[in-house]
């Protein structure tokens, strides 16, 4: 089998496109046939293992319908005993890597997900497809090449984002900034810092990271600060010229220096909850609109963005996709006895939101797994680029989790713990995610038992959150931003709300209408 690098060397660009991005030409019917056939393989693999028999029972479903009828929806609790103890014999296929993530609000601190050889192969293929798309302005024209300088701003193994370079290296060689083996020993901040220092010397062709980090670097440049980076020592003529040009622009023309003055990036690939909110800023600072990639530890790379800001397109061969309509998803959170029904990708409708349910293909462990992500169907196709697969957008985590810029996931437990840690006399609270200047913030509405000064409440809570959630701490450290907003409600506000409204207010992400009623209660 030819690798991507060999195909690039032989200039087989059409073949490359067909191999990695050919799925964009599929009709919805063809997409469904792929889903169906690969699900049958997964059922076959599951039927041979303990985990599969536990979830599917002894009789092997013979069709999609039977599978959806017989197999219950699952959550991580259904797998915890097998996966957290790494019981490989109980799995449909032998894992090569165990990928880790935090389990906020779960029964354990972490979640583990097994990745088999075939899954890594598919994950790599999906990642390369996303890179090709990130470096393309229209179908079949891409500028990705071997030995491109790749500023890789994501967490290394055992996190999912660290898996891609290991699969990709069998296909193509990139010059990672910093090199992967060096990056693995560095923390997030240091890794990004060294990466950008190297980029100043060598130049950069590709970027993969959190969109919020790119915005932060852009802002620093615009302010004239390079965050303590060492003096650049360009090691090629292009960078020498660009640095000289940037120097002239700043010193003599007195113009604001932006990253795009230094680097001509071929492609920017971004992940993270709030990428859509940062896109315009990134384009302004970096001169190239980022392409969004959507995935997760349990689900791998699920969808990728194409062209024309029309949304993301699902990969047909990574997961079997099912969707729970948002209202049923919400109901099932409060009514545990309610079992929501799912629909398939050929049944979703534009402008509707859904909770994603996946069954991993290629020997993965998760079956009818509720990921906890909400997506929105933007349209059923991307007409301008002849894509006949529904175009979606990742909206957020399900409402009981607040994800801030891809850095942290705040749950009820996180806030309760911070309140306890800070010793705040809180009567009741609700929290929601809001946007300020297109950037996400955490807004907590609090009613105190005793009077306290607003500033000290804010400071105590901010510090307690930093102490109890290290990821929250990273937001300020990395982005230099305070994401916390507090509104103190007068005493009795929540009681007043209860009298006024028949609905119980939810702790996390209550509706805007509920917030307004709560604030009205304050006024009365």
């Amino acid at each position: 089998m030819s690798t991507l690098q060999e195909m690039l060397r032989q200039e087989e660009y059409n073949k490359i496109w067909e191999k990695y991005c050919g799925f964009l030409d599929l009709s919805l019917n063809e997409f469904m046939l792929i889903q169906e056939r690969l699900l049958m393989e997964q059922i076959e693999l599951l039927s041979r293992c303990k985990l599969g028999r536990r979830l599917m029972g002894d009789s092997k479903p013979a069709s999609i319908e039977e599978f959806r009828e017989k197999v219950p929806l699952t959550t991580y609790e259904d797998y915890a005993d097998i996966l957290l103890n790494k019981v490989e014999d109980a799995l449909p296929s032998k894992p090569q890597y165990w990928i880790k993530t935090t389990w906020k609000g779960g029964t354990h601190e972490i979640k583990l997900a097994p990745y088999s050889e075939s899954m890594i192969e598919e994950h790599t293929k999906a990642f390369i497809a996303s890179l090709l798309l990130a470096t393309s302005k229209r179908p079949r024209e891409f500028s990705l090449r071997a030995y491109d300088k790749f500023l890789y701003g994501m967490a290394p193994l055992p996190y999912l984002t660290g898996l891609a370079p290991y699969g990709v290296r069998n296909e193509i060689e990139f010059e990672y900034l910093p090199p992967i083996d060096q990056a693995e020993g560095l923390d997030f901040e240091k890794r990004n810092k060294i990466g950008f220092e190297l980029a100043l010397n060598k130049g950069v062709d590709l970027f993969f990271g959190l969109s919020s980090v790119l915005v932060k670097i852009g802002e620093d440049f615009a302010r004239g600060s390079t965050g303590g980076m060492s003096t650049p020592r360009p090691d090629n003529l292009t960078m020498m010229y660009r640095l000289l040009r940037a120097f002239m622009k700043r010193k003599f023309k007195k113009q604001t220096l932006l990253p795009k003055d230094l680097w001509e990036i071929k492609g920017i690939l971004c992940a993270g909850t709030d990428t859509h909110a940062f896109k315009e800023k990134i384009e302004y600072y970096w001169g190239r609109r980022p392409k969004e990639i959507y995935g997760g530890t349990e689900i791998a790379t699920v969808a990728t963005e194409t062209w024309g800001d029309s949304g993301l397109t699902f990969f047909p061969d990574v997961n079997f996709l099912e969707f729970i309509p948002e209202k049923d998803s919400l109901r099932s959170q409060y009514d545990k006895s309610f079992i929501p029904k799912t629909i398939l990708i050929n049944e979703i409708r534009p402008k509707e939101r859904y909770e994603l349910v996946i069954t991993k293909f290629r020997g993965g462990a998760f079956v009818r797994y509720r990921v906890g992500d909400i997506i929105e169907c933007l349209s059923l196709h991307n007409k301008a680029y002849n894509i006949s697969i529904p175009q979606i957008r990742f909206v957020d985590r399900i409402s009981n989790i607040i994800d801030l810029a891809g850095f942290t996931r705040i749950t009820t437990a996180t806030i309760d713990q911070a309140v306890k840690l800070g010793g705040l006399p809180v009567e009741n609270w609700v929290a929601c995610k809001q946007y300020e200047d297109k950037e996400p913030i955490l807004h907590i509405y609090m009613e105190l038992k005793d009077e306290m000064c607003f500033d000290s409440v804010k400071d105590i809570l901010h510090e307690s959150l930093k102490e109890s959630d290290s990821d929250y701490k990273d937001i300020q450290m990395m982005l230099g931003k305070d994401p916390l907003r507090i509104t103190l409600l007068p005493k009795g506000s929540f009681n007043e709300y209860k009298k006024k409204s028949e609905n119980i207010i939810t702790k996390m992400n209550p509706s805007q209408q509920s917030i307004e009623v709560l604030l009205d209660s304050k006024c009365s």
Partner: protein
Amino acid sequence: MEPFSYLVLVPLISFICYCVLLAIILGSRKNKVVRYYTVYIAAMIIWSLGSFVMKTNFPPSTIFWNRILCIGLISMPVIFYHFTLVLTDTKNQKINLAVGYFLAFLLMIGNFSGLIMYEAYVENNVFIYTLGPLASVMAIWSLCYMFLAFINIIQKVKTKKIPFSRVKFILFGLVLVIIGGLLNLIPSLGKYPFDIVLNTINALFIAYSIYRYRFLEIHIIVKKGLSYSLYTLALTGVYIAAILGVQLILLRIIGYNNTTLTLAMAVLLALVFQPLKNTLQKGIDRLFYREKLNHQVFLRDFSKIINNVLDINELTDSLLEAVNKAIKPHNAYLILRQGKEAYAIAKSSPNSQLEEDIKYSNNHPILQWFNMGRQLLTMSEIESSSFFTSLWSMEKKQLRSMGTELIVPIKLRDQLVGLLILSEKKGGESYTQEEMDLLFTLMNNAAVVIENAKLYEDAKYEAITDGLTKLNNHRYFQEILSKCISEKTYDVFSVAMIDVDLFKLYNDLYGHSAGDRALIKIAEVIKKSTRSEDIIARYGGEEFAVIFPNIEGAASLRAIERIRRAVESCFCSSKDVNEFLTISVGVASYPRDGLTNEEILDKADSAMYAAKRSGRNQSVVYAKKDNSINLLNNKEMQKVQDSIKTAYFSAIYALAATIDAKDHYTYGHSENVSNYAVALAKAAGFDEERIDIVKNAGLLHDIGKIGVPESILTKKEALSPDEYEVMKRHVDMSISIIKHVPNLIKVIPAIMTHHERYDGKGYPRGVKGENIPIEGRCLCIVDAFDAMTTDRPYRKALSYSDALMELRKNSGIQFDPQLTELFISLFEEGNITGVA
């Protein structure tokens, strides 16, 4: 200089070679490697052209052509070095490369400033030159870059980034070039054009390498065109040389040139050359189209062989042999259609290693690809086309482990008969268009014959297979058995006869379709619980037969017991009401129990009947003295029977207690029915086992009522139609409960039919007359009698005489007339008394 001097001819031949190579490259698909190779060839063309023309004293001057030569000579090393970097995908030698180009640029300036060749001219056919100060620098520099190229390739090979096989010809070529360069440093040898000869060989080596390892795809048209051009060029060259030769001879003989004479000689030579041309054309055809000629021979031979073959095995062997001979792949696999919905591996090369069987269903992407009318499929297409996204990972892995490179369809008209999967060729080359054409023709020819052979095979299979169970049929079984005996295939073997218990009743109760399904299931169970070498057949109706090679006596008993248990556990573990079937098995051995078909089958049959007689669901091995006995010794037998009995009775009483817990009245009724039934059975002359059956059936016949709501059981008013339906279900429910207790299976027929009427209007199945098992007919009478003579929630008890009258009234309608009469007479004669 003389036109035929080697000093002129060598560069001329090199020049022609390079031009031909350039033509090939221009006619092929371009990529980075090919582009750099093209530049290298261009440099060599300049070198050889300069070298050739320089020695012919062609205007403007010798020194001019020498400087042209030097352009090629200077640019060649660095271009060649660059080419090797591209070929080996080396990126870290940019500085060396930049320095090389820069120095080449300086040397170019030196060349045109006369610092490399100070002067050069031809005088009296002798080439005279004076080297400039940079000539030796250029030579050393040139060698250095050749060494750099060499070291780089060696390093890539050492670090296993590139296989040696892929670059070996390039390395050999490089060694030759370096030797050529070193020879130039020795003045006595440097005057001969070794360097240009060795460089030409190098260029040819590279061309071969990049062609063989698929960097260069030469189109067939270009190849054919080039072959004819070469042939014409060679012939014209020889023709012109001949004319010039004749002219020279004439000049020497007669001292002057005569145009008329020369023309006459030319015509004469043309006449002589015609047969020579034909011979040459044939030779060239053989040389260039040997592959094609061979293929034609293969096709002819293959057609001869296959037209006389009807055996599918022989045919597939011949087909694979022909493919292996003609194409020489490492492995070849043949997948053929099996039935209507699947394709499976039929044959593979002897050295192939398949870990798992291949089985493709009709919706398989590879089959769909060919059904859409496509001709060939390469592994590269499978790996890169989104059409194959739905291919299972395990299927991809399998194709890779088979080393798949090419898949050729075997098509008969529009029908896909099968597939031929080929791995890489032994020589490592890619498949040529001719080979693909050959494969396509070969498979087209084979399709008709394969289809015929398959039809023949199917007909043969049909003739020896039982249509329902897909086991061997009776005729084939007899044939095999005769063969085993006549040919003494095995020293010993055993034959088992298997009969399904109560199958007639099963058919009557559930219908013949259910009966057929049960037989298929039993056949499956027998297949699974026997060895691969055992021969299984459906012997007739509900009878099966098995030949167990190489076992007898106790081993054969163990073999049939395994089958019996498998059937028992398969049916009893099912939740289906109607799956209560068991089998009785008898086994006899050759040569101990008989020497002919008939003898062995009779003995196995009598052992099977002994199993039936001793209560069904048994395994019995034939023994001569007392007809048939189980081979377990008496003590063991007694022990087993005791434990069975204990388990049996505990089961019955546990179940009876269940009824009691539900409704004490029902228990009393069950006991009465049991007692009456035993009396009637004894009077009717039942053997002990059957008496036991009716006794236990009487106790348990209403066990299913534990599933009937009490509101219905104790209802005083008449039951509504819906309630009556619920009540009727207690029979099936009884079976569902009892069938899970292996020891109680025997009572099922009695319980199942105790509400059936003699006129066929009963429930649950509406079985009629003698089709109702006699135990069921017994129960029916005594159950009705006890029900009439005891108080019920909805009415008072009838007197015994009224009840007996009622029995008589319904004799032959609801009840078996003979048994009714017997029961009445027992009562009237006082052999039965009423119960309290």
